[in-house]
């Protein structure tokens, strides 16, 4: 390892190579599947080939007779000894009974109906083939609008396919429409279902010691504090009897949050196997069909009011979100979208009727850009379509509608407070980077030759550090609000600086950035700091909101680390002042010949960290009585300053920070192959103060690649009877380096006034490329009379639209009503 070098006045702001890289790139990471335990058994699920069917019988006898099979477990057995999982929806949604193995019905293709546990993974595969399940197929529902008709109901006990519905209405919507100079109507837009494809799939080892009545998990769930709350209630055990640990995680992107049903099965299986540990390693096909997908959303009957300058004055629309077969983390997404209710725009009047429905598809989970990207895409589509209809250039349209830089902190119509931002500046930087004027000229030339050539802009937000009080908008009785994270900072017995946090990073570089923060507090090198990441309920640095999700570590995690480091420093000062016989003001933190130390400026005498740690840990008789409370082992819990939102009005601040991104793309649609070829691409990012600019840049590239994939390649396709047609990489085609254009990266910084460091959370990225590629294709295809009303577009779909347009079969409707 090369020594860390600071390239500015502080470690914060330095592009420090990641501390974890050496371990991970050499294959020395420790992932759950690397863990081998004595008497380990292996679990394989038996899954439904049907999207919707009654389970008539499950016969496990042949599987149990196979030598090497330890036991089997069925949905009936699970239901007999557990409670259904907590449902967050109130009312009818509350009546949904969700068990980790199907009991009476299966509701999506790939739903587990039984599990076999064997001495080896391949024996478990053999045994799973021997389980006989008899099904009676039922009418599947694969379309959300169809689902709302309740012709075929997934959860009979709920009596409806609707999970939740609510209205967000702010300002004077109808008045704005009456006074509008223009009204644009868009009948239907649709945001497609896609997911994430982490290198490491879901993996769990569960062990339920019957004698100790204690459950242990080694898992890669990315929000374990949430998962164990669900599991404890389901298994009816005290939560302190559950130990959950994470180690290295090979990507999550949010969707590993909802692996708790599989975790529950592993515990139950272990109990039945006499307490032997049970390992489940999800196959790629299982991951594609039955882990979690992102939310699919349909936008109906959208009306937009604009004044004569093209400023949007009101939006009214009906949104239908499809959460798949079981709500699980939903209907939180019904509220989370409203963190970015007005996007980057100033309009004050809006009415959104938001409904969520179940369908016979894989349950959804919080997929990178969770619930906000769908809404931001909707707003960006509106901006481009309206600009086109009233004849304003898309860049000009945005400048007229963006929240102005001087308006921050900006309170949105629904009471969210945007901390900082400068959207016009991002646009300017992005235009410079891409060479806006030159591309405009090339576009004009290309169009003269009849080529389909577009330039498009996408603006997006990445709201981070959420207020769990948003759950009370869904259910007024939900016992959640605020946000918190814990950290511990200590001098160990020999004086090592050891930091522990309750996060479970999956490539975000938490070890590195936490070390940078502590290095500045103590004025030492990050190389001298050990950071322990990974969640562990028995290490006591977590809170009930610990995990790695929702673009927040830089705020919640590092604020906790910073708080703990300051507490430690204060103790070290008291101790050093006593030893060096001087005042605390006289002390200087730094590194001397004997390593990191605290020095008295007046005398030049110093004590190194070993000396300080020695006194407290193994030489405490020399301590004075007034220093008896010094532990050099400091825990700090950071809490966000949130209030519970107004549940009736759905008004209140839901997120602490708002990173923003602005992307510009140039695309030509090939006239022969209809391939939308990206000719140039820019991503400009504003996360305020970047703790580690290189990590930020890397996150932007990753999020950009993921969302380019989503825009052009990655689509979870179901046929009319609920068969998933994209269950392999050959069909789903996750993006690879062959498909990623050269991305030009730019950064501006508007520091957050709400965080100690000025940093804003930024990992999710806001799916800028989905908005941008839609906008760019739109620009290329307006001339052909085509409106981009789908978030997924590939060569095949562009070809189809053009052919349908020619044949007069294209059912798209955008209308403009002009009143000036």
């Amino acid at each position: 390892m090369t020594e860390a070098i600071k390239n500015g006045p502080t470690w914060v702001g330095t592009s420090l190579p990641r501390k974890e890289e050496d371990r991970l790139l050499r294959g020395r990471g420790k992932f759950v599947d690397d863990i081998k335990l004595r008497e380990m058994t292996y679990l394989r699920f038996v899954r439904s080939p049907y999207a919707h069917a009654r389970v008539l019988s499950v016969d496990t006898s042949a599987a149990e007779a196979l030598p090497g099979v330890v036991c089997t477990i069925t949905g009936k057995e699970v239901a007999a000894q557990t409670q259904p999982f907590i449902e967050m929806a109130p009312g009818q949604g509350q009546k949904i009974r969700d068990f980790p193995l199907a009991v009476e019905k299966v509701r999506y293709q790939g739903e587990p109906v039984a599990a076999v546990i064997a001495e080896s993974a391949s024996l478990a595969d053999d045994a799973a083939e021997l389980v006989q399940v008899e099904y009676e197929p039922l009418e599947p529902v694969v379309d959300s609008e169809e689902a709302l008709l309740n012709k075929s109901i997934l959860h009979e006990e709920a009596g409806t396919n609707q999970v939740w519905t609510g209205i967000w209405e702010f300002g004077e919507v109808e008045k704005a429409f009456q006074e509008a100079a223009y009204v644009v109507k868009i009948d239907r837009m649709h945001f497609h279902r896609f997911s994430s494809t982490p290198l490491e799939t879901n993996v769990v080892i569960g062990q339920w010691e019957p004698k100790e009545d204690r459950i242990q998990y080694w898992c890669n769930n990315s929000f374990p504090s949430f998962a164990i709350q669900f599991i404890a209630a389901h298994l009816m055990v005290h939560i302190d009897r559950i130990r959950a640990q994470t180690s290295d995680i090979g990507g999550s992107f949010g969707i590993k949050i909802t692996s708790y049903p599989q975790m529950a099965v592993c515990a139950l299986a272990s109990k039945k196997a006499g307490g032997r540990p049970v390992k489940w390693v999800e196959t790629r096909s299982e991951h594609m069909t039955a882990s979690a997908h992102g939310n699919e959303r349909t936008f109906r009957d959208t009306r937009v009011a604009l004044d004569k300058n093209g400023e949007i004055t009101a939006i009214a629309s009906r949104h239908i979100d499809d959460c798949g077969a079981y709500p699980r983390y939903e209907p939180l997404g019904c509220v989370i979208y409203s963190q970015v209710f007005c996007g980057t725009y100033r309009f004050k009047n809006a009415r959104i009727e938001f409904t969520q429905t179940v369908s016979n598809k894989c349950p959804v989970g919080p997929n990178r850009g969770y619930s906000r990207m769908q809404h931001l895409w909707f707003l960006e589509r509106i901006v481009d379509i309206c600009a086109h209809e009233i004849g304003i250039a898309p860049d000009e349209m945005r400048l007229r509608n963006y929240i102005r830089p001087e308006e921050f902190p900006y309170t949105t119509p629904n009471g969210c407070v945007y901390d900082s931002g400068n959207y016009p500046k991002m646009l300017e930087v992005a235009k410079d980077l891409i060479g806006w004027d030159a591309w405009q000229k090339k576009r004009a030339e290309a169009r003269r030759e009849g080529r389909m050539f577009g330039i498009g802009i996408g603006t997006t937000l990445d709201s981070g550090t959420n207020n769990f009080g948003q759950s009370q908008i869904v259910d007024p009785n939900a016992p959640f609000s605020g946000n918190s994270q814990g950290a511990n900072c200590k001098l160990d017995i020999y004086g090592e600086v050891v930091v522990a946090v309750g996060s479970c990073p999956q490539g975000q570089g938490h070890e590195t950035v936490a070390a940078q923060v502590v290095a500045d507090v103590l004025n030492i090198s990050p190389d001298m700091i050990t950071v322990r990441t990974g969640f562990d309920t028995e290490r006591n640095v977590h809170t009930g909101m610990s995990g790695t999700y929702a673009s927040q570590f830089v705020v919640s995690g590092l604020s906790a680390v910073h708080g703990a480091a300051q507490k430690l420093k204060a103790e070290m000062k008291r101790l050093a002042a006593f030893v060096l016989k001087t005042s605390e003001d006289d002390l200087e933190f730094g590194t001397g010949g004997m390593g990191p130390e605290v020095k008295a400026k007046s005398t030049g005498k110093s004590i190194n960290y070993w000396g300080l740690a020695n006194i407290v840990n193994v030489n405490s008789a020399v301590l004075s009585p007034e220093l008896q409370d010094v532990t050099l082992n400091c825990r700090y819990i950071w809490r966000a300053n949130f209030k519970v939102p107004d549940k009736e009005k759905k008004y209140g601040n839901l997120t602490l920070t708002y990173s923003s991104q602005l992307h510009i793309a140039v695309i030509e649609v090939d006239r022969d192959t209809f391939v939308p070829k990206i000719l140039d691409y820019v991503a400009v990012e504003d996360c305020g103060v970047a703790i580690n600019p290189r990590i930020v840049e890397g996150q932007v590239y990753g999020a950009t690649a993921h969302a380019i994939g989503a825009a052009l390649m990655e689509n979870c396709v179901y046929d009319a009877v609920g068969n998933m047609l994209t269950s392999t990489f050959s069909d789903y085609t996750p993006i690879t380096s062959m498909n990623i254009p050269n991305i030009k990266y730019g950064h501006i910084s508007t520091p957050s006034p709400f965080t100690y460091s000025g940093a804003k959370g930024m990992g999710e990225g806001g799916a800028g490329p989905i908005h941008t590629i839609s906008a760019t294709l739109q620009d290329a295809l307006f001339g052909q009379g085509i409106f981009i009303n789908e978030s997924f577009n590939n060569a095949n779909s562009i070809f189809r639209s053009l052919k349908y347009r020619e044949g007069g079969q294209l059912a798209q409707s955008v209308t403009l009503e002009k009143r000036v």
Partner: protein
Amino acid sequence: MYPRSFHYHRAGSLKEAVTMLGQLGKNAKFLAGGQSLIPLLKFRFANPEHLVDLSFIPGTSFIKEDSGAMHFGLMTRHSEIEHSALARRIPVLHDCAAGIADVQVRNQGTIGGSLAEADPSGDWANALITLDTTVHCLGANGTRTIALSDFVTDAYTTALAHEELVTEVVVKIPPKGSGGAYLAFKRAAPVYPSASVAVQLKLAGDVCEDVAIALGCVGLTAIRATEAETALRGQILNDKTVATAAEAARAAADPQSDMRGSAEYKRQLIVALAKRAIQIAARRARGEKVEGAHLYA
């Protein structure tokens, strides 16, 4: 998933491999590079009781020129062909080899295995059918040579008997003044193409003296677009004749709608690929160096 358990056998010679498969019977299969078979085993779509591995047989991986023909061994890997200066002399072969799936597949997959698998979306059969290609086989009754056009008989079906294997693929080197190109359209590196077109032609001045055009992934086997060939043979190559040939190729294609695209879109792709492949082949016939292989969405 893990495959069902099977017996693994390692053959020491081609002859031994043939004998083994004959003795092991219907539930035995040859294992060459494994790039099709191993995934089928892991999905448990194929469940043979015995695998006879051909990987350790000496002298089965080579590229050599002999009496006006290029010879490839049963186990010659795609990547060896991709990086072979010798194979570059027939550009259609280089185009094909360099674009098959991704690096890992090319390092492991073999030309013999690919032909014997006869996947309708496979690259080799389509590229090679535009050339004078023969497949040398060894079976219980000794050796035989089969023209490629007679070798692949249907989707996933060849003229090989159960215990018979491909020993060598022999491609006649085209005469001077010839040029070829293989273009496949793929949505992403590791996937099969949505459509592919192979063209091999010979120019005399501007006139196309002879031409072979084949279409891949748009039928149960590679399709020779004979009408398209007729449209070019004896004609001066220009935008009009090329467009006529490409339209004839569209008509010859017989694609199915699937996740790679609708049947109509695949026909459109055939037109686009045919135009480009003919043009690249013609430029190469004139002695130009043109890089070109697979296209990505």
